[in-house]
């Protein structure tokens, strides 16, 4: 079997985190994310992962995110995963972590609808994820995998970026990717890490005092702090990642992330077999969003079709990138339904 393994997306996230050197995971069960903590619970104590020293099931999402905050405050690699309703509950802790500049990794397995919604796939947490999600105006780096292979490799990337910017990083997965099983090549053995944790609250080593705090009562002090955070968001723009497929001669470029970008790949191939010149632009980082890279395609007059599983969220960013230079259309499905290749091609024909 060429060393390949068949893994579920949620399991791959767990192994990816372990291989990145995960120290602590704080769990709260919610479908469809639960295979991640289940996998980690099973692997806890495995001598292959000597750094993995804490697995704890919390009594609520609030406990889980704040335990993550506490563990991460010591400079340890801490992670927690959840699904949409739980992601809302975690916003408080995430906002604090940004204000305190504490790095950790959160996984949101996006499920359907507002409220309890359903267990089906949606991409309706896009705006919540990319606009910060909690109070106070902040940004996370948001990584959007579209395969089980990426679910395995993104935790390492997420921790690297989190510690680089001292800011939480979100892996925005979805109910489809979480439950999807694919054969994947195991990661090359992890190289370990050497993050700067001189800020961590590990006691006053060498008389150096560490205070992780998001409170700045004086206006000038608060403004200075927020400008400092803003400068980090500006620097984070250098981390923009995207993937292009057959865009050079395309009349229509599909813009899609996550699981729908996979369906779009099939649509591009099938469309081209049928004489439609279609391409695909797939943002991998949803924040920073690849505005300038997409605006180049818009300026070339290519029509943009946004395929997403919500009532129109990423389309707002695509329209910002297009800035009125080209036609931007959207198509979507909701509640666990996904568009078919035929749906996408029918829409493309309509646009030509």
């Amino acid at each position, binding site marked *: 079997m060429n060393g390949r393994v*068949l893994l579920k997306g949620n399991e791959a996230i767990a192994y990816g985190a372990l291989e990145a050197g995960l120290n602590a995971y704080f769990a709260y069960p919610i479908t469809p994310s639960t295979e991640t903590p289940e996998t980690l619970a099973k692997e806890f104590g495995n001598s292959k992962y000597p750094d993995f020293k804490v697995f704890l099931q919390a009594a609520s999402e609030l406990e889980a995110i704040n335990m993550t905050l506490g563990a991460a405050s010591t400079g340890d690699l801490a992670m927690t995963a959840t699904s949409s309703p739980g992601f809302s509950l975690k916003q408080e802790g995430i906002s604090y972590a940004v204000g305190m500049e504490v790095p950790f990794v959160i996984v949101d397995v996006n499920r359907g609808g507002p409220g309890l919604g359903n267990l089906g796939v949606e991409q309706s947490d896009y705006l919540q994820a990319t606009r910060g999600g909690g109070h106070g105006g902040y940004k996370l780096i948001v990584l959007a995998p579209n395969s089980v292979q990426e679910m395995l490799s993104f935790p390492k990337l997420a921790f690297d970026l989190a510690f680089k910017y001292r800011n939480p990083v979100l892996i925005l997965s979805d109910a489809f990717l979480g439950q*999807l099983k*694919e*054969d994947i090549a195991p990661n090359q053995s992890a190289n370990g890490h050497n993050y700067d944790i001189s800020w961590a609250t590990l006691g006053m080593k060498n008389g150096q005092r560490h205070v992780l705090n998001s409170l700045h009562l004086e206006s000038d002090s608060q403004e200075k702090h927020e400008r400092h955070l803003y400068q980090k968001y500006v620097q984070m723009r250098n981390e923009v990642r995207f993937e292009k497929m057959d865009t050079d001669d395309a009349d229509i470029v599909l813009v899609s992330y996550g699981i729908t970008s*996979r369906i779009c790949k*099939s649509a591009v191939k099938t469309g081209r077999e049928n004489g439609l010149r279609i391409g695909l632009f797939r943002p991998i980082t949803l924040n920073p969003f690849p505005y300038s890279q997409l605006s180049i395609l818009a300026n070339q007059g290519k029509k943009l079709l946004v395929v997403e599983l919500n009532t129109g969220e990423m389309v707002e960013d695509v329209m910002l990138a297009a800035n009125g230079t080209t036609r931007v259309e959207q198509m979507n499905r909701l509640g666990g339904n996904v568009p078919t*290749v035929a749906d996408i091609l029918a829409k493309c024909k309509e646009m030509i």
Partner: protein
Amino acid sequence: MTSRSYLIVGHGGQGVLDLGNFLSYDAMLHGERTAYTPSYGPETRGGKVRCYVVTSDEEIDSPIVDEIDVLVAMNNPSMDFEKVVKPKGLLLMNQSLIDRVPTRRDLQVIGIPATDIADKMKDQGFALSDTRVLQNSVAYGATLATLGKPFDKEEVRAVLEHVYQGSKSRFIPANLEAARAGYEFVAERQGLKFAECGCD
């Protein structure tokens, strides 16, 4: 590029998701790429369950496809999915639980009483209180035979070992026998015409 898509449909407790896993592991063990997508309701038993499997000798773009090459229908309601099978595609029907008749005339239809075959294994001394749970392995063997694949006992065992790990590994011998029974049932009847398989 050679690829094949499967849709397996049934109700909870029929082992539909495990059957999807068998087919995915089978492909991976043969060096193919594979994607398995489960879809099920919130109850673990009794609900409508289905899963998609795509196998390919190249990287898989979309893990679900508009049209299906092989539909494995495990109960009556699953016949609703007949319409998504490709022209001249394959329909494998669990005759034990299906009395509906295929409406498509262009499909290759194979009928197998998978549930009955599994039930009859109760006298073979396996450590199972109810051998009906083996119906998915019967269907797995039947699928292999239908696709003209050889029955390699060690390969089938390897597949079962991937899916049934830990305490579940005690189910492997029974499932291996069930897969063989399903395979033999179809192999003996290969080449039967549509009308002869008792579906019409």
